[in-house]
């Protein structure tokens, strides 16, 4: 298969797949590692939640601009 002939739509599907994999990786990291050294255990300090918002925005972007 010639790489130059790959369908353009695959690019967006692949991007979405990459961000879904990132989402799974993020939530596989134990909580104690994420809160290492953190001043407190507040929900907003869980940077896995921050990463989830980032992933959601990216999924939206790559779903819209196709």
């Amino acid at each position, binding site marked *: 298969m010639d*790489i*130059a*002939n*790959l*369908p*353009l739509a*695959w*690019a*967006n599907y*692949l*991007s979405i797949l*990459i*961000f879904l994999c*990132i989402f799974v*990786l*993020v939530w*596989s*990291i*134990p909580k104690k*590692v*994420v*809160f*290492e*050294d*953190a*001043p407190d255990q507040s929900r907003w*300090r869980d*940077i*896995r939640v*921050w*990463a989830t*918002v*980032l*992933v959601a*925005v*990216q999924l939206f*972007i*790559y779903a819209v*601009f*196709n």
Partner: protein
Amino acid sequence: MHPLDLAIIVGYLALITFVGLRLAGRVKTAHDFFLAGRTLSWWVIGLSIIGTNIGANSYVGAAGNAFSIGIAQANFEWIGAIPAMIIAALVFIPLYWKAGVYSIPEYLGLRYNPTVRVVAALITSVVAVFAIGVALWAIALTLQTYLGWPIWVGILVTGTIVGAYSIAGGLAAVAFTDIFQVCIMFAGGLVIVGLGISETGGFSGFTETLISENPNHLQAYLPADHESYPWPGVIFGLGMVLSPAYWWAGQAILQRSLGAKTQWDASAGMMFAAFGKIFVPLLIVFPGLLALVMHAQIEYPDMALPWIIKNVLPPGISGLMFIAIIAALQSTIDSSVNSTSLMLTRDVRHVLIKNANPDNDLKVGRVLTLVLLLLSMCTAPLVAEMGGIFTFLQTILSLFQGPMLALLILGAFTRRATPQAGLWTLISGVVVSSVTLYSGVNMLYVAFSSFIYSLVALWVLSGFTAPHPNKDLSNLTYSPWRRS
């Protein structure tokens, strides 16, 4: 020039110098100078990372590219940054933090051997001198365009201001001045977005014109047979190799993370910067699209942003955009100078000079910062006259990205990678990428193929070479899932 423009410019330069010099009193040791005494909060780190990341090419080059290829240019900020930034925040920053290192070459030295540390530090440093020279030249050109200053005056004034606060205040001064610079960049960008949209008949008018006249400019990717940015190259070369190499191994970027007051601040700072990256296309891609919608008559795409500044911004506000460009360049220069000085002081000097006294690191670091700036000021005109040299050096750096990333990944996630295998993979990986590049393959594919080669070579060679002398690699490998 409008008096308001002049007031903004003078006010900015005075504020940056004042803030930078105010922080000089905090610097008592090399630890304060290079890592800000580990006092930086997450939001300072995040804004400073954005400031360091947006450089000379971002403003003018990205707007020009957006004019030509559309929103696909934003991939450099999205798929080409955000996945790597998330992993940097959750994996690599905690790893470097646990290893207790000052720099990424220092980590590679501990994980492999001192030769890898010196090679990594030297290559990055040489390229940095020319990169700083390019940024100084770009500022001098901007100053000449707006203020009519001769080029040498622009280089001298910029070098003196950046040198004053970088040498006196170290990383803390660099990080805090970056905050002002990023705020100015976003303010300038938002003004362009607001005025541009109003000029083109509101948001609906802007999008309708763009969609009807240039529908392909709203596609996130370009076809697989595109000459410069084929989508497989963007995803595999940029997204999986060049971007991770930049965000996981870039000293100028990660140094402020290593200067955080806690590991959590370091990781949160990188994640905060990733949020900023979502909006960066508004600053650097939107002006190119706006020029397209406004049917800008320009000779070549890189003139898109200057055209917008001239035709959209009213007198009094164009000074803000001028300062935004200067700020983007300054924040890149100060970060590069500080991180290069660190690598030469510790990663090169401590390894090559056996009895180097660590107590002299602060003095040596300051002297090297000055020398680096002077060298870059001297190379700035050369870079302009012989632009090929910089392109050549950038290419050399790119050739190292794939092998360097393979060393980092197998070194961080496995205990299998050995010191000898690391060194030989680095050397042979560069040879493989050079040969591939010489055969005319797109740079994005060169990066990906050299990365895959290096992963395989490091894995195989490690099976035939002596293991790491330190059997306990727990502080140098990432294993949060291992049961203790």
